[in-house]
C-alpha cells in the first residue's frame, strides 16, 4: 500500500474523527497503549490501535488497512481515535504520515539494543529533529522524572504536560547500577538526585546550572506495591485525585499507568473512566498468565537491561523465593549484541531463585553472567538452549500449585508459547488480539455522559466532504452481439421475477455528510450496552 500510494496512510490517519495519540519511548509503550485504550473505551471512544509490536511503519499501515472499508477510506465512525505505539527508532519514518497528532506521549529513554539504536543520545536527537516538524498545538506528554525526556525539544512552543512520581516511598537509597547517568540536558554537568525510583528516573536537579525536574501536572501521590501481582496508585490530576488499582506489578507499570492517565486527561476523558485501567489484562508476554497442569506459568518479556532488571524486581519484590526460567537469545541475522546482560541487576536476587533454568541460543552467555553475579553453585543452574526442553525441565521442577516465572527475550518466549498453543493451553497471539477486540466491543460500556465528550482543542473537526454521484452511462450494444435470451423465465414455475425499482432502494447518503446523521447507530450501541 505504501509503495502504491505513499499518501494513502496519511490520508486514512487524517480521517480519524478524533485525531490520534502517539506513544513512544524505550520501555512501556505497549502497556501504556493498552491502558489508555481501556480508558478511551470507558470514556465512549473507539480507539484504533496497532497490535503489540506492530509499531513500525508497516505495522501501522496494516492496522489502518484493517480498519478501512473496501473503498480505501476509513469506515465512518465519529468516535474513532487513533492510538498508535511508535517504535522510537522508526519515529522519523512514521511521523511524516501523521499530519496532526493531538498528543505524543514519551515514556522514557533507556539504553536499548545498542547494536541497533546506538546510544540514547542518538535516539534523543532523532526524536527532537522529528518533533521540529510537528504542528505547534500538538501536546507533548512527557515523563518529568526522566531528565532527557523532561527536556526533550525544550525550545518548541508546543504545550507540554508532565507526569511523574510524587510519593517517594518506594524510591531507592542509592543510584541504580543500571542507570544511564544522563548528564544535565542544558549544561552537561552531573545531575544530583534527591530520590531515585529506578535507573535514572527520579527527582533530579543540576547543581551546576540550576535546571531541575519540572513539577508534574499528573502526579502519583501514593504508590502501594501489592506483591508480585498488582499495584494501587493514587493519582492527582489538576482536576481531582483518583485511586486506581493496576492489576500489574512493579514500579514500571505504575509509570505506564501514570502516562496513560496523563494522555486521558489531555483527551478530556471523564475522571470516572480512569478506573478502566483496572480492567486491563496482561498483554501477550507482559506477565501473561497461563495455567499448565495446575501450575500458574507467567510469561514476561524483557528486552533490555532496564526491562530485565525491573521485571525481576517486580517478580521478586516480595522477597519470597521463586522458580524461574531465564532466557536470552538473539534473533537470526540481527541484534547479536547481548552485552547488556552485564547491566542487569542479577546480583541483588542471587539467593531468591530456586533451580534456575537458562535457555535460548545465548544460554551459555547468561549462565556465565549468573555465575559472576554470585549465584550459588554454577552446577545448580540448568543450561538448556532449546526453549521447549528448558520449559519442560522447569515445569518438572515446579511442584503443582506453585508458580513458574519465565523471564526472557522474545524468541524463547515465542518458542514456549508455540508449544503451549499446540497443546491447547493458549491461543494464537492474533486470535487473542482479535478476541480481545471483540470482547471490548461487546462489553457493556459505562455511559458517563449523555453526549460524546467534546473534541480536544487541538483536534480539528474533519472537513465535511460531499460525494457527487457519477452520471450513469448507457451503452447500446449492437443487436447482432446480443445472445438470444428470449423472454425472462421465472426460475421456479409459478413465481414471478420482480426487479427492484428505484423506489425500493434506500436513499443514498453521501459518506461524511453530516455528523449528526448516524444518531440511530449511537442509540443502538447504547441500547446494547444497557441490555448486557
Amino acid at each position, binding site marked *: 500500500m505504501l509503495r502504491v500510494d505513499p499518501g494513502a496512510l496519511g490520508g486514512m490517519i487524517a480521517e480519524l474523527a478524533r485525531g490520534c495519540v502517539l506513544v513512544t519511548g524505550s520501555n512501556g509503550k505497549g502497556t501504556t497503549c493498552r491502558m489508555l485504550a481501556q480508558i478511551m473505551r470507558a470514556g465512549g471512544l473507539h480507539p484504533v490501535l496497532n497490535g503489540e509490536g506492530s509499531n513500525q511503519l508497516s505495522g501501522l499501515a496494516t492496522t489502518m488497512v484493517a480498519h478501512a472499508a473496501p473503498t480505501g477510506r476509513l469506515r465512518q465512525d465519529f468516535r474513532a481515535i487513533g492510538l498508535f505505539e511508535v517504535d522510537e527508532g522508526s519515529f522519523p519514518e512514521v511521523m511524516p504520515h501523521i499530519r496532526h497528532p493531538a498528543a505524543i506521549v514519551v515514556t522514557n529513554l533507556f539504553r536499548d539494543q545498542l547494536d541497533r539504536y546506538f546510544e540514547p543520545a542518538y535516539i534523543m536527537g532523532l526524536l527532537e529533529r522529528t518533533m521540529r516538524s510537528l504542528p505547534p498545538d500538538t501536546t507533548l506528554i512527557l515523563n518529568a522524572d526522566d531528565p532527557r525526556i523532561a527536556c526533550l525539544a525544550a525550545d518548541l512552543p508546543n504545550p507540554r504536560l508532565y507526569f511523574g512520581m510524587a510519593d517517594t516511598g518506594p524510591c531507592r537509597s542509592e543510584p541504580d547500577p543500571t542507570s544511564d547517568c544522563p548528564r544535565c540536558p542544558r549544561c552537561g554537568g552531573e545531575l544530583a538526585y534527591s530520590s531515585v525510583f529506578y535507573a535514572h528516573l527520579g527527582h533530579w536537579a543540576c547543581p551546576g546550572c540550576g535546571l531541575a525536574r519540572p513539577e508534574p501536572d499528573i502526579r502519583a501521590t501514593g504508590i502501594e506495591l501489592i506483591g508480585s501481582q498488582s499495584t494501587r496508585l493514587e493519582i492527582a490530576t489538576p482536576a481531582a485525585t483518583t485511586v486506581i488499582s493496576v492489576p500489574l506489578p512493579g514500579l514500571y507499570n505504575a509509570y505506564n499507568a501514570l502516562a496513560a492517565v496523563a494522555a486521558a486527561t489531555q483527551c478530556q476523558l471523564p475522571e470516572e473512566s480512569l478506573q478502566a485501567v483496572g480492567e486491563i489484562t496482561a498483554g501477550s508476554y507482559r506477565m501473561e498468565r497461563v495455567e499448565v497442569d495446575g501450575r500458574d506459568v507467567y510469561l514476561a518479556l524483557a528486552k533490555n537491561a532496564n526491562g530485565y532488571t525491573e521485571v525481576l524486581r517486580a517478580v521478586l519484590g516480595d522477597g519470597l523465593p521463586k522458580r524461574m526460567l531465564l532466557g536470552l537469545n538473539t534473533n537470526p541475522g540481527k541484534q547479536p*549484541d547481548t552485552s547488556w546482560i*552485564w547491566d542487569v541487576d542479577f546480583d541483588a536476587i542471587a539467593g531468591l531463585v530456586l533451580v534456575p533454568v537458562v535457555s535460548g541460543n545465548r544460554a551459555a*552467555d547468561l549462565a556465565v553472567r549468573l555465575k559472576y553475579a554470585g549465584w550459588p553453585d*554454577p552446577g545448580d543452574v540448568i543450561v538448556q538452549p532449546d526453549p521447549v526442553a528448558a520449559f519442560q525441565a522447569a515445569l518438572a521442577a515446579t511442584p503443582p500449585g506453585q508458580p513458574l516465572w519465565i523471564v526472557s527475550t522474545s524468541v524463547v518466549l515465542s518458542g514456549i508459547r508455540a508449544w503451549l498453543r499446540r497443546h491447547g493451553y493458549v491461543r494464537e497471539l492474533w486470535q487473542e488480539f482479535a478476541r480481545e477486540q471483540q470482547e471490548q466491543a461487546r462489553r457493556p460500556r459505562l455511559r458517563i455522559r449523555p453526549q460524546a465528550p467534546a473534541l480536544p482543542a487541538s483536534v480539528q473537526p474533519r472537513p465535511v466532504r460531499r460525494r457527487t454521484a457519477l452520471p450513469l452511462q448507457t451503452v447500446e450494444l449492437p443487436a447482432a452481439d446480443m445472445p438470444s435470451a428470449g423472454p425472462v423465465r421465472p426460475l421456479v414455475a409459478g413465481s414471478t421475477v420482480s426487479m427492484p425499482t428505484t423506489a425500493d432502494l434506500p436513499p443514498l447518503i453521501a459518506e461524511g455528510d453530516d455528523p449528526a446523521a448516524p444518531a440511530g447507530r449511537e442509540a443502538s450501541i447504547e441500547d446494547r450496552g444497557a441490555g448486557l
Partner: protein
Amino acid sequence: MKITIGYLYPDMMSTFGDRGNVETVRRRCAWRGIGTEITELKLGDPIPAGLDLILIGGGGEAQQRLVAADLHKVKAPGIRDAVAGGTAALAVGGGFELFGRFCQPERGAEYPGVDLFDCWTIRRSTLLGDDYGTIAQAKADRVIGELVVQWDDRLLVGFENHSGGTYLGTAAQPLGLVLTGHGNSGTGTEGVILDSAVGTNLRGPCLPKNPALADFLIAAAVGRLHPGAELMPLRDELEQAAHDDCLQRVLPAGRIRRVRPGRAAGTGPARQPRLTRPQRSPQRASRTTDAATRP
C-alpha cells in the same frame, strides 16, 4: 594478597556492559583468595600511585568528549607512568580509542588521547551529526558484528561495534590477528598490546568469555608486587562453553579467514600491519592510506 584496580569513569564510560570486565576480575581474584580494592576514578580525580590494574570501557559520543578533555588534563601522565611501571591495563571500545594518540570525529575538532598506544582513530562518521535522518543511514557507517581474534596461540571472541578506523603506528604491536570481523581498520590486525596494557575493539564485557585474557591481566597485576607468582587454575566450563558457543556461531558460516603460518608468529613490535585481504572498496583503501600517513 590484594590488588588495587583503578576503574576509570564508571558513570560515563560503562555504556556497553563494561562492568562485566570489572566483575570478572573481582570474582576471579576472589575465587583464588586474592583481594581486590576497586577505586572509581571520575572526572577530576587524579591517578593515584600504586595501581595494579587500570580498566576503562566505552561511552557515548558526548561522554567521550568530556572524558577526553579530563584524560588529557588530569590523568594522561599518571596512566603513562603507571603502565611504564608495570601496571596492567585494559582499554575497551571507546576507551581504547581514547588511549591512543588522538581521535578525530567526522565533525568538530579532534581530541587528544592519552598517548599510551601508538595508534589513532579517525571516525568515518559521528553519530550525533545531523546527517543521519534514520537509523539505517547511521548504521551503514559502522562495523557491527562478532569478532574472532588469534592472540598468540589462543582465540579471543567477542563483539565489535565501532566506526572501524583505528590505525596503528610503527611502534604499536597489535594484540592479535583478525580471523572474523573487522578489527582495527579492516587490515587484519586487532587491538594493541604494550607490556601488560591491552587495548581492544572487543567491546563491552570481553573478559567473561575470554578467561585467558582476564587471567593474563590478573597475573600481570599480581606479578607487580609478587614476581613469579602463579595463578591457581579455575574451573572454567561455563566460560569455555560461552567462548566455544561464539566460535560455533561463526565457524559454520565459513567466515574464518585462514592465517598463513609465519604471519601470526612474525608480528613484531616495529612492524606495520600488512593487508591480509583486498580492500572492499577503493574509497576505503584511499582513506586507509591517508590515515596511515597522517601524523
